[in-house]
């Protein structure tokens, strides 16, 4: 008899691949990674705004989901408003991850459906001087990320000199909203931006962003 391991499930493989993309992006801010297709999740509930159904960015929502479990507190916002814990989309997340739904100041992970919701970033927990790692991580859905038409210049650990990256279709104040969360390093919010095609960049709190 030989002992061996169980082949990973589709979701476990997705979690590992996604984590490696996030790891590379977090270690090298400005590097554009590709989140794998979350094919195991079909029929993600929509939310309604102005009587119009809005689709989630499936790459951003599920890559956030890949890090959630019973030890994590989660919240999400769309159109600059926190989504009710009893809503269908929050219950969908909770059922699949076993996470606890929470208010913004206590959330360890948040998913922002659009860049306009970045105005809520200042409400999130930036950690404490003794335990800065207890801060929140925000996944933000953005329309498009590319390296051909740079809009931001990034500097900081993980970057050789500087790195130019294009993040398109975000609200004009987005960089301001991000910068406000990280004026008191080591306190701060770590941010992951993911576009509609699963392209991903990370903006850890050490990353300095300036407009091109």
């Amino acid at each position, binding site marked *: *008899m030989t002992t*061996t391991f169980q082949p990973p499930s589709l979701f476990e493989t997705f979690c590992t691949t996604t984590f490696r993309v996030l790891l590379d992006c977090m270690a090298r801010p400005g590097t554009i990674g590709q989140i794998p297709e979350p094919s195991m999740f079909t029929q993600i509930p929509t939310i309604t705004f102005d009587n119009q159904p809005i689709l989630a960015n499936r790459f951003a929502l599920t890559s956030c989901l890949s890090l959630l479990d019973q030890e994590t507190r989660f919240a999400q916002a769309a159109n600059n408003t926190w989504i009710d814990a009893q809503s269908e989309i929050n219950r969908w997340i909770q059922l699949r991850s076993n996470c606890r739904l929470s208010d913004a100041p206590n959330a360890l992970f948040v998913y922002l459906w659009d860049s306009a919701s970045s105005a809520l970033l200042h409400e999130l927990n930036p950690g404490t001087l003794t335990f800065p790692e207890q801060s929140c991580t925000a996944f933000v859905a953005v329309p498009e990320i590319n390296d051909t038409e740079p809009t931001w210049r990034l500097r900081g*650990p993980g970057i050789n000199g500087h790195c130019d990256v294009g993040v398109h279709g975000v609200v004009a104040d987005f960089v301001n909203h991000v910068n406000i969360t990280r004026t008191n390093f080591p306190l701060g919010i770590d941010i992951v931006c993911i576009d509609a095609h699963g392209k991903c960049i990370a903006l850890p709190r050490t990353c300095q962003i300036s407009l091109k």
Partner: protein
Amino acid sequence: MSTTPEQLYNFGFIDEDSKREVRRQILKAIALPGHQVPFASRDLPIARGWGTGGLQITMAIIAADDTLKVIDQGVDECVNAVNLRRLLQRTTGVTTTVDTTAASIIQTRHRIPEEPMRRDQILVLQVPMVDPLRWVEPNLERATIMHGESDYGRMWVYMYESVVKAGDLRIATQYPVIVAGRYMMDTTPIPRWDVMRLHNAEALFLFGAGREKRIYAVPPYTTIEPLQFEDFRFKTEFVAGQICARCGAQDAFLTSHFVVDSDHPDGGHWRSSCSDTSFCDKRVLVNATNQEAPK
């Protein structure tokens, strides 16, 4: 007797929730270079203090298409490295290698491989003692507050006292460094030789301490400044004229061992050779090929 494999273990041995927790802490550790992030160190089939921190990091990050190398003191063949590699290989099925350039994940104790690491490689270091402030503040709670406040004065006094008592900075391994201008970090028992190889490197370095339940990281292109004084500078172990007895390398970290030799008047002699055996073997092979080549 049945030959059917029994699928007893999860991929990568630890369960998915444990992996997720380690992954979350790794991401925070990268966002806070040099800061010690607590994690719930799991029980493993090896004792804590034998590489369980590094092992849990490797188990949390490893994917089926990775190529793994495990070294202990630079050596692929010693007992600890062999056992850790076998555990990881049996619970993941990944390809293993001894060639530094072929590996995507390298788990190590005490050394950074001599061959430069690339951006597509991750070095996972096993850490025995996490906190550089332990020498001056054994209370972990108070040391954590000192890190939070960047209160490193006492460590500078410790360094000064080392100079006054010993005439030089008397720190052999675990040399304290400042990472990205903020956190003081212990460099694990890597020799001083390797300390500056963490500075502005291409690869990502992840540090795991299983016994002390901490994870920390040095991202690529991050500044590492060893603690030193203007008149007492940080020095590596380099000795002018040093040479590896096997491959002839002069610019590598060497280890020495006593060779018994009855013909020698002292009954033996000391011999130095590269601590990184994979690097040394490659050079021996190249030297042999060059000698065989027709002139």
